[in-house]
């Protein structure tokens, strides 16, 4: 073996590197081709009947109609033969045929005189006699995705995203006046807040992923999204840091930079939050009471505070930061809620939602890693009585305001 490897290496040394890199790829391709051509020699037929796995991705209700978008999550084609709503067979049409291949999807439009406020259990009988279950806990008409609906979603995004974040940023003058010793505590407060936010978003993402087709990754999408977001932000950060180092920057600019990072992280998080709100609203799971909107607003106000906390150093009531900059920061952090609400209400897809929640988590974790060093005291310790108090206060505030919005 060793000798053979040695013999290979000698002539290999004369071949260009790119060719050496390509040879294994070509061999893998040939092997796969031969395997497929021969029909998987030695593997034989499957054992037992096919297991049908189907996920209900989206439920839409219109007067006299229930629409289900189904995705085949299993290895074999599935044929939907009949549909029963609350133990009564009903007629239906299928947008993309009744037979769906692996990872394919079709939308069944079922004729049924559903009644507002009632619950419905649906089973779809497949050609093999298997059933796919879908349930509608509380029937309510799905809003039509027209202009006024997008307007409403935008308003919702502004209510729960832009306005509260901007209001939270009004703490900037207060933050400016706070004694220098408290800066670590303020940053700690932000970190505590963000940490709980990340945990919350991760759990919500995993919750949504549970309903998503496993073939697309399911729960792994949350972690993938988090990893991708973290790495992208780290890369952008490294790039900007080098440019800043070349240009030279003041302390105020450093604070603004840090605030921008926090705003981006929170913005990506609010994208997921908007998505959850929009889809819940569209499926009738969420009643847009004033209480809930107020709850979200108070909850997200804390995020505004997190953005301005790093802007402490500087002169003037805003720490030398221009109002234009503050407005941009507020938009970066709050406006994605609008986009999220649109996506969530118009084209909710559990796999996409899980991925976006993961992105939010990764962004927040990146922000925490970024700003945590600012918690250091004179002795260089990150965890000291003041910072711990700040962390706990942040966690407590987010938890308490979160009680207002538990949907």
């Amino acid at each position, binding site marked *: 073996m060793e000798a053979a490897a040695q013999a290979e290496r000698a002539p290999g040394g004369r071949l260009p590197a790119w060719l050496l890199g390509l040879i294994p790829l070509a061999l893998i391709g040939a092997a796969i081709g031969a395997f497929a051509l021969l029909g998987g020699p030695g593997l034989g037929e499957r054992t037992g009947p096919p297991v049908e796995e189907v996920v209900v991705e989206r439920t839409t209700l219109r007067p*006299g109609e229930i629409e289900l978008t189904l995705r085949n999550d299993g290895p074999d084609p599935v044929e939907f033969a009949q549909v029963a709503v609350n133990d009564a067979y*009903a*007629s*239906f049409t299928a947008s993309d045929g009744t037979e769906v291949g692996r990872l394919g999807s079709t939308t069944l439009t079922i*004729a*049924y005189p559903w009644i507002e406020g009632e619950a419905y259990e649906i089973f779809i009988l497949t050609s093999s*006699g298997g*059933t796919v279950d879908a349930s509608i806990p509380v029937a309510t008409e799905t809003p039509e995705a027209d202009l006024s609906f997008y307007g409403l979603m935008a308003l919702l995004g502004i209510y729960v995203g832009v306005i509260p974040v901007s209001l939270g940023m009004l703490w900037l003058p207060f933050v400016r006046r706070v004694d220098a010793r408290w800066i670590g505590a303020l940053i700690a407060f932000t970190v505590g807040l963000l940490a709980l936010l990340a945990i919350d978003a991760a759990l919500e993402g995993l919750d949504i992923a549970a309903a998503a087709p496993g073939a697309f990754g399911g729960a792994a999408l949350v972690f993938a999204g988090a990893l991708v977001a973290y790495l992208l932000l780290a890369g952008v950060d490294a790039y900007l840091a080098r440019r800043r180092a070349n240009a030279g920057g003041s302390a105020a600019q450093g604070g603004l930079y840090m605030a921008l990072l926090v705003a981006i992280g929170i913005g990506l998080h609010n994208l997921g939050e908007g998505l959850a709100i929009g889809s819940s609203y569209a499926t009738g799971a969420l009643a847009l009471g004033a209480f809930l909107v107020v709850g979200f607003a108070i909850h997200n106000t804390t995020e505004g505070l997190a953005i301005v906390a790093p802007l402490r150093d500087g002169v003037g009531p805003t720490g030398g930061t221009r109002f234009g900059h503050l407005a941009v920061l507020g938009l970066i952090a709050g406006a994605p809620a609008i986009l999220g609400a649109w996506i969530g209400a118009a084209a909710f897809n559990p796999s996409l939602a899980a991925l976006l929640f993961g992105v939010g988590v990764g962004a927040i974790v990146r922000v925490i890693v970024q700003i945590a060093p600012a918690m250091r005291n004179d002795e260089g310790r990150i965890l000291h009585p003041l910072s711990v108090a700040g962390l706990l206060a942040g966690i407590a505030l987010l938890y308490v305001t979160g009680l207002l919005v538990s949907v």
Partner: protein
Amino acid sequence: MLGGALAAGASLPIVQGLLPRESGGLGTAGAKAGHSGHAGHEGFAHAGFAPGRSVNHRANGFDPTNLLRDFDYGKTRRLASGRVLREWEIVAQDREIEVAPGVKYEAWTYNGRVPGPTLRAREGEKLRLRFLNASDHPHTMHFHGIHTALMDGMPGIGENRGGGQVGPGEEFTYEFDAEPFGVHLYHCHVSPLASHISRGLYGAFIIDPKKGRPEADEMVMVMNGFDTNFDLSNEVYAVNTVGFHYVNEPIQVSRDELLRIYLVNVLEYDPLNSFHVHANFFQYYPTGTSLEPSEYTDTVIQGQGQRGIAEMKFPFDGDYMFHAHVSEFAELGWSGFFRVGNPSRLTAAAASAAYCDLPWGGAGRKA
């Protein structure tokens, strides 16, 4: 007529109603009345299978319409004693059948059909059934009747004499006297019982009284169901196997003619089943063991294994629904129609009166 029907159909693009097939198209007026009377229910006439597709009876090997009046009298010969000996050959076999349009089910059958053949004899005859098991699983034939333990089709009893459980490839001949008269049933008695029965191993067993019964249009209705996903509850309910079959192909009967229904309940997983007929009443003979009816009614309940005879005459032409008065079963397939008299005389009003005044989804289908 055609124009009106098409117009009604156009406004109900995805309707599958319960209007029996080949009925006259609904008049425009009837359809409109239905619309206005049920605001919010447009587009949904009633429970039914998705349109555009029907069960392939040829592939199944049996058609519920024919099964209805198909009585298997076997072969007879007179014994030296003067008694009649009646003989059948029954083969148990596994077979895939379609129980709802597009829905296949791995059934276990007697003679390739579900329900098995309706065995019919006369009180006092000697019966002999040669049972061959061509299935992959052990089975028996357990008759409701009066007989010896060896002939009971009960696993664990009589194996040493070739009886009891009959394994794959084996056979056994059941022999007993036809008694008492009435409507009975037979089914497999191998454990797990619910599984062996619900898979399709059952049939009606009729013993006519010595003096016979009055002349009538006779039919057998075996109320059954199918647990297609094996979750111990039925997905499809029916009489004679195919859900909604007699909605799509109503049972033709004559006005003022005596109708006799041998009704047997073999449903598994649900403790009770029922039979209800519209716009009429019937005389009911529980188990058929008396020649005097016990009740004049339009609804009877039967537990698992219960059966009886219903006799009625339809005084008016028209389409009349019959169904389980367990609404869940009715809307999961156990519904049908009697079509009384000349179909061409049917009017929209008569068709609507059959169940309720909704515009039947069949309006757009055929005039």
